[in-house]
């Protein structure tokens, strides 16, 4: 049970890769990539968790009164969320252009760059 969070992270990464490989629609592929990325959120935050701990935010608790979880992984995950959202935006923008210029968003039909 103590590895369950990590296993969920690994599962999400693999499932996302499966979705990317079998995708027939580039927008769907962008969504699958977001699943891959959620694996990193789950892994990082699970690493920083502490049983019985609470958020390292002292606006409503006195410092030192309760054990705290790791704030560093939370900062890392925050950065990661921002990166994820912006990468999603940029990839979607490119998908829009692909559909405009190729008339399709099916990777099976995009076969111009080969050999």
């Amino acid at each position, binding site marked *: *049970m*103590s*590895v*369950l*969070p*990590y*296993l969920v992270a*690994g599962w999400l*990464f*693999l499932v996302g*890769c*499966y979705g990317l*490989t*079998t995708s027939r629609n580039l927008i769907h592929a962008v969504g699958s990539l977001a699943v891959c990325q959620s694996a990193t959120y789950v892994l990082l935050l*699970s*690493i*920083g*968790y*502490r*049983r019985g701990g609470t*958020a*390292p*935010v*002292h*606006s*409503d608790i006195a*410092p030192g009164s309760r*054990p*705290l*979880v*790791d*704030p*560093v*992984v*939370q*900062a*890392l995950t*925050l*950065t990661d*969320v*921002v*990166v994820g959202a*912006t*990468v999603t*935006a*940029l990839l*979607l*923008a*490119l998908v*829009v*252009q692909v559909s*405009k*210029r*190729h*008339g*399709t968003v099916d990777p099976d*039909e995009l*076969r*111009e760059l*080969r050999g």
Partner: protein
Amino acid sequence: MSLRVRMWVLAVGGLGVALLLAGAFTHMPDFGGTWHPYGTRAVAEALRQHSANAVASVNFDQRAFDTMGEQAVFFGSVLGTVVVLRQAGDEHRTAPEPAFVSAPVRRYALLVLPVTVLTGLYVIAHGHLSPGGGFQGGVVAATALHLLYIAIDYRALQRVRSLTLFTLADAAGEAGYLLAGLAALVAGAAFLENVLPLGTFNTLSSAGTVPVLNAAVGVEVAAGVVVLLAQFLDQAIVIEPADGRGHRADGAARAAPEGGRP
């Protein structure tokens, strides 16, 4: 690769990665353990810097350089989206059509819009005290503006959304963050050093430069999200191909035999 070969490659690769991860996870420290050396140090430093929210202290003080990179990612991808979704030479703009949205939705949206903006500002302003911060609040505030599109129509949004202004604010937020860092350098300290007075713990004016950087991020994100969504909205609503030459790979590319597949 044919589909079958691809699935086999995927299966082999996926199995390998699964084994790799499983092997690593068996050696991980127990979930929920108490050993967090970096985290413990970070909390102590946050308290020393009079920052109630240790996450904000890590983000905007101890690892402020990371956040500078993160903001650059945001800035760069907004700029990239502006470039990628620009109006191409073979396209023109049409006037958006008015939409008919039911009256209750409209009333609700107009009522909730100011509430959402205020919520966003609240989340930004208290970023260094309670959960939240520039990014979260900025996105909330920017989303609020799009209630105008959702509940009225695109023209209403266009009327209040001066892209010049928002682009300027986006760049100003990014520049503000960097200038705050450089100001410390000019003052003789290290880049992005927390040189302002630390203030009283758990009040709005505490933690030195953290609220300043937080505000810069908030401005940049709020403006950047508006600019970003404006590109998508323009593409979906007002940008149309000018003539019949929408995409270059017409007919022929699709008619070509699928040489890659045996």
